[in-house]
Structures are given as C-alpha cells and as structure tokens.
C-alpha cells in the first residue's frame, strides 16, 4: 500500500525498501507464538494476518451453584374488579399455594382504574335548564362531547382529535372546552339550587371559561416557542441592559437622596409640639437668650467682620507692593551683572551672532556638549550599509567634509530620504515577487 503511494508521489523506493522485510519477520514471529489454530488454516492466512488477535480459549459462563432453596411461586387465579365482564385470569404469585389462597389480596392494579367525576345530565335536564338557543349546540352533540370527555378523561387534545360528530362542525378545541365547562357550570348551579347548599360555589366560579383569553394565551405561548435563537439572545441582552439601567437608576436615586440629605437643614431631633404654644415659645426664647449670653462670655470682642476683612486686605496690598518693589530692584541688579544681558543688550546682528557661534533656541534644549557630526543619524548595521552604498552611488561621502549646522541638517535629510527610498524598494520587491508567484 505504502509503496503504491510512494509510486504515485514519484518518491524513490530506496528508503522504504528496507522496511518490508523487517515487517515480515515480525509477523512470522508473532505467528509462531499463536497456538490452538489449525496449521492448514494458518497457512491460508498468508501475509494478511487478521487485525485482531484470535482468542484461542473460549470461556463459558460459570456454572450457577446456588445453595439456597428456590422460593416457591404459585400459579393462582385472580379477580380484576376493574373489569366488568368478570373474566378470570391467572398469574404467578410468590408464596406457597396455601398462603396465597388464604390471603386473597385485591388485584394490584385495580386502584388505577379510576373515573373522573364529571357531572352528568339526562335529556330532560338538558331541556329544562341547559338548552340555550344562543349556542349552536343540540342535546345529541352535547351528549357526544360528554361521552368523549368521560372516555378520554378530559384529555382535551385527544378529545379534539377524536371529535367526529355526524355532521362536520369544525369546532375548535376551545369551542369544545367552552361548551363542556359551560354545561358543567349550569348543572352545578342547578344542583345547588335544588339542594340549597352552596358547597360547589368555589368550583362554579372556577368553571368560568373565557374562550378568547384562552386563544390569546395559546397564541402567546406559540409565539414564545417560535422565537429564533437570535431573538432569544437579543431579549436576554435587553433584559440584562434593563437590569443594569434599573440598578443605575437605583444608585442615582440613592445618591440623590444622600445629597439632598446633606443639603437639607439638619432634621429636628425632637418634636416641635412643645414649642407650639405661646408658653412653650417664651420658654424657647429664654433658652436661646441664655445660650447667647454664655457665648458672649467666651468671645468678648464685638467684632465687625467687614472691618476686619478690610484691614486684612490693606495689609496684603502693602506687603505685595513691597515685594514687587524688591523684585524690581533685584531684576535691575541682575541685569547689570549678567554677561548675557550685557551681550544681548548690544543688540547683536545675526552676522555677529554667527561670529560668536551663538544661537538662541525657541524650545528647551538638553544641556551638555557634543560634536556637530555626532548628530548625523545612524541606522541598524544592514540598513546603514545599504545607505552607504547609495551614498557612494551618488558620489557622496558617509560623513560630510565640513560638519557645520546647515550641512548636518542636510545630511540628516538625505539619510532620511534614502531610508524611505529603501523602504519603498523593499515594498516594490515584495509585490514583484508576489506577482511572480501568482503567475
């Protein structure tokens, strides 16, 4: 198999040729180890050894060796009270014949044969209190419905499915329910009236069946069921959003309440009822007056706050003026001392400035000394080499002969343009190779 693949792929055989013999040896060794198989049969196998090792010994299930005595079972007849035909059937019951006959238990599954307590009516009843000309139901059909309801234990889906009255009526499930519950209610009401005991009043109110509501409810349920996953996800996210909003709103409300509390005047701790009468008021007045007097003892200076402020301002103004004067003086002195200002006051022409090698920069510069030529940029070695190659092509040196400021600036620009050229070249090369590959 592998050799075929190799052939297809045009791969030389030499490498794999050494492998097959090895494999053969292996299988032979394995084959010798196998026992319990016919030699002739084994020879038939040839190289195609089965993928699964053959099990040479078969194992049967262990023999059952139970020492216990088997329990006795009796074949007994039983009566099923759920049946109406009194048919007698037999079944196995645990226990000896005597015990089983002695204790005749009712059939186990009898209890599941229950019947719903559905109100019933006769034709007379129908005519007396059920008949309603506004409803398109006749006695016969109502009877049919009740029979079905009884037969299928009020399983409405089944009833609706099996509903097959003589003339096709096209009644929906809700129609059937409405009719059924309506009739039941009537019967119960009539019975109540007869017996004059309101024991079923609770049930009667429960039997109010609203067909439209039911239809709406089902529609909603169907719609809920038919949502697409995207809609469900959206709904969920919206719910989360809504919760977030609610939480945020709660937070803001709480914060606002706090703020308002802070802004509010302090709440009265006690009730103010005692001060509402004139007597209470005078008492309060007296109290406040005494407190005021006490405070006066503490700070006897009758201060006029406005005057104090004015005084303060005046002082501040004076000190400020003094300070300003001092500063002006100092500045004057400094101007006299400083060599820069001395020089700058001479109003140097640009030419003179150049002669002194002076330059005033607009921005802050890093202090320190450096050589002008050190500002020529350097690049990564391989980039630098390419740049130098291009410089040679252009007939320029790596370093300018005269590294003055303007020359260095130009050199910097040259380096940068060469660098962009190199980048561009790289891009073009890349694209070209891509094209070649695509072709």
């Amino acid at each position: 198999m592998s050799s075929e693949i190799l052939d297809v792929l045009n791969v030389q055989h030499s490498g794999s040729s050494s492998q097959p013999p090895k494999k053969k040896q292996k299988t032979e060794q394995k084959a010798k180890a196998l026992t319990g198989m016919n030699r002739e049969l084994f020879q038939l196998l040839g190289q195609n050894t089965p993928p699964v090792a053959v099990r040479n010994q078969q194992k049967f299930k262990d023999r059952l060796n139970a020492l216990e005595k088997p329990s006795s079972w009796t074949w007994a007849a039983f009566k099923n009270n759920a049946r109406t035909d009194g048919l007698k059937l037999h079944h196995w019951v645990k226990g000896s014949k005597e015990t089983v006959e002695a204790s005749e238990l009712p059939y186990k599954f009898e209890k599941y044969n229950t019947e719903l307590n559905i109100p019933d009516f006769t034709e007379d009843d129908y005519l007396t209190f059920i008949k309603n000309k506004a409803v398109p139901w006749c006695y016969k059909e109502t009877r049919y419905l009740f029979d079905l309801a009884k037969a299928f234990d009020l399983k409405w889906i089944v009833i609706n499915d099996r509903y097959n009255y003589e003339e096709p009526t096209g009644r929906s499930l809700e129609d059937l329910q409405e009719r059924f519950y309506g009739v039941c209610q009537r019967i119960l009401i009539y019975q109540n009236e007869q017996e004059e005991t309101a024991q079923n009043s609770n049930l009667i109110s429960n039997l109010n069946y609203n067909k439209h509501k039911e239809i709406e409810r089902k529609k909603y349920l169907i719609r809920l069921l038919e949502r697409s996953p995207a809609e469900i996800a959206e709904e969920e996210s919206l719910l989360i959003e809504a919760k977030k909003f609610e939480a945020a709103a709660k937070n803001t409300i709480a914060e606002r309440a706090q703020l308002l509390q802070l802004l509010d005047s302090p709440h009265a701790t006690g009730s103010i009822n005692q001060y509402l009468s004139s007597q209470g008021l005078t008492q309060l007045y007296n109290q406040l007056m005494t407190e005021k007097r006490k405070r006066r003892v503490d700070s006897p200076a009758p201060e006029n706050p406005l005057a104090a402020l004015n005084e303060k301002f005046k002082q501040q103004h004076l000190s400020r003026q003094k300070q300003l004067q001092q500063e002006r003086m100092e500045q004057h002195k400094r101007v006299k001392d400083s060599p820069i200002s001395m020089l700058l006051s001479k109003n140097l022409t640009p030419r003179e400035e150049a002669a002194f090698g002076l330059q005033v920069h607009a921005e802050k510069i890093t202090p320190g000394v450096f050589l002008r030529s050190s500002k020529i940029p350097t690049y990564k070695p391989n980039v630098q080499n390419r740049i130098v190659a291009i410089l040679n092509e252009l007939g320029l040196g790596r370093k300018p002969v005269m590294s003055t400021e303007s020359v260095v600036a130009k050199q910097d620009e040259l380096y940068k343009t060469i660098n962009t050229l190199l980048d561009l070249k790289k891009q073009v090369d890349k694209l070209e190779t891509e094209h070649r590959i695509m072709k």
Partner: protein
Amino acid sequence: MAPGPSSKRIKTLSICRPIVYGNTAKPFDPEHRPPNAPSEHTHTWTVFVRGPYGEDVSYFIKKVVFKLHDTYNNSTRSIESPPFEVTETGWGEFEIGIKIFFVNEANEKNVSLYHHLRLHPYGLPLNAVPTEEQKNVESIQFDEVVFNEPTEQLFHIMTQKPGNMVPELKTQSVFSKQTEREEVVRIENGIKKVRQEIEKYTKKLNELQQIKGP
C-alpha cells in the same frame, strides 16, 4: 569645580566653536631617517586637534588625550597644553581615539571621537605612482563643538572675542563658507536624485498594487 552661581546655565542658548582634527603624514626622507625610529617604520605622522585656521583653542579646551595603537610605548598620550598634537613614526594605519576635555568653567564631560590615521594617499587610481606632493598625506576632519546651555562662566569666556569666523572663499582656507555652500549643494543634489528615485518607485508600487487589486 567651582560651585555657586557661576555654574548656572543659560537656558535655550547654544554656542559653538569649529575645530579640526586629523593627521598629516609623510614618508621618511631616505637620506635623513630619524635616528631613533625602528627599522620597519616608514612614515612620520602627526595627529592633532586645533582650530581650523590655526587659531588658539585652549581657552575652551583644557587637554586632549590621544589613544594610539597598543604597540606604541606609552600609548595613551595626554596633551595638556597647545598645540594638541602627537608626532610619531610608524608603518601602518589604525584608529586613533581622541578625547577632548574642556576647561573647568564649562562644567562639561569630555567628548570622544575617532580618527583613522592615514599614511598613504587615497582616492587615487590603483597602480598610479603618487607624486612627491601626493605623498604628503593629509586627512583632516572639520567639526563643531556645540555647548548647549553653556554655563555663565563659559559664556563669558567664549564671548570675549568672536571665535566662529569662517572665511568666505576657498582660496583663504580649505574650510570656508564656500566649501560649506558647495557641500550643501552637493547633498541637495543627492537628495533630489533620491527623491526622483522615490517617485519612480512610488509609481511602480501603485501600478503593482493596481494589478494586484482586481
């Protein structure tokens, strides 16, 4: 270092001074070999740092340290007074490390640079026999020392006299304003050529991208 207000720096101001560094070399005169030169030596050379027009630079340069090849005796030569130069004999070219120290008032670190010692004429076609004049090799580099935000003291020293005068014409000095202008023009031409190349390649790139696009 003198502390106090004098070491205060002047903001946003820089001051620069031109210097040149390099070497001159010339082969031995066969008749007058220096008596103490080893037998394999062939050249006399001088490496130096100085003002471009021979002016004094010691008012801002305190000393210059030349680091020669390790095979020289006492290979680190510290020159503490002008002229800042070292004259030696030798047979081979090598990199000389040069460290320039500034006067105390500058309150600056030293600046180091390298110079490749040239003994043989360069830029000549191969097999060309150099003339006697060409045998006197010069390899000189022009540079500027820039003091960013100099101290007030240094500023005072530097402004005693104009020290940045560059002659107008080439005939006055190799390093003149004319040289500078020519240099600028040369570089600008180079930039122009590179720009043309860039344009060419941009077009090519656009074309390639358009082919690739649809």
